[in-house]
């Protein structure tokens, strides 16, 4: 078992760095909400196509939203914020705010794949 031998031969610091990497990967998975959002989108497609009915949708949606909330709270926790933001937004707008068009009204070339 060459592989295991190699691992055991690693100096202590090297082993610690592997552990750190593992922790980092685990943390990323632990706080990644993209797959959950994707599931929610897929669920909407499923109910639109009639693959599942409204009741099933509501039930699964609640489950997905619970997971999403959990991850968002976890993220806030890691960032040192309280678990839930229980206040509304203030009107104080910072530099760089505004509305923008996501197409160019002066161009004829606004249609096509990859935009």
């Amino acid at each position, binding site marked *: 078992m060459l592989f295991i031998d190699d691992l055991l031969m690693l100096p202590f610091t090297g082993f610690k760095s592997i552990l750190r990497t593992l922790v980092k990967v685990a943390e990323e998975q632990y706080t990644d909400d993209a797959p959950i959002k994707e599931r929610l989108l*897929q669920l909407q497609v499923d109910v639109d196509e009639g693959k599942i009915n409204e009741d099933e*949708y509501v039930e699964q949606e609640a489950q997905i939203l619970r997971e999403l909330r959990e991850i968002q709270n976890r993220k806030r926790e890691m960032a040192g914020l309280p678990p839930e933001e229980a206040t*509304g*937004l203030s009107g104080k*707008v910072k530099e760089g705010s505004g509305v923008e068009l*996501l197409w160019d009204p002066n161009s004829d070339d606004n*249609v096509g794949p990859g*935009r």
Partner: protein
Amino acid sequence: MYGVIEAREPMSFGKIGIGGIGENVYTVHQGDIAAVVSKTPVFIFDPTRENALAHEHVIETVMKNNTIIPMSFGTVFRTDDDIREVLKSIYPSLKDVLKQMANKLEFGLKVTWDRDRIVEELKKENEEIHRFQHELTRKHLQSTYFARMQLGRMIDKALAERAAEVVREIYDGLRAVCVASRDNKVIGDKMIMNAAFLIQKDKETEFDAAVNAVAQKFGDRLNFKYTGPWPPYNFVNIRLKLERGTAS
């Protein structure tokens, strides 16, 4: 807050506010523009279908007679004054975008195909795949892991190429009757196109006809799901960098 419209006089859109308790939807003004809002006892809305539909319904109601810049779902301000302050801060860009979006509508187009059927077609039509599969059968290689992997990769590549071709053709058929388009990420492995189109209001019938013509051209090989009109979510972006209010 649901969005921003052009309006000088206070307006009411009925008791259709988000939250399920029939809050009145009204306007908060700053000069000749106004935010469409309703009161709410909660600050956080879960993105449930019910809440999203309520948000959507308000925007659709407003859209019937107004150009609206839609606000993202679940944007809650503390007071009407906070909203007025926001409108004031970004007034020039709001005015400009309202002018550009006047008389324009968004439509969605999702196109799916029967992946298995296309794979069968490719196995017959794509020379490379056809030959490779023939080889596999002839040499009884069918069961080797590597050969199957290779065939799978070839099919995936051919599928992606075919999808890109089809999507290009669809865009070509619609280019003349729309203002702009946006490609969104496809959902699931059957979808090959998930696009939004910005249409001049008076071109709506022409766009309908063009979508039908393209759909007919592909017959039952593709499935078109055409929705709208929507507020122009995919063509404007309200970027607000806000300071969070404190609880006190």
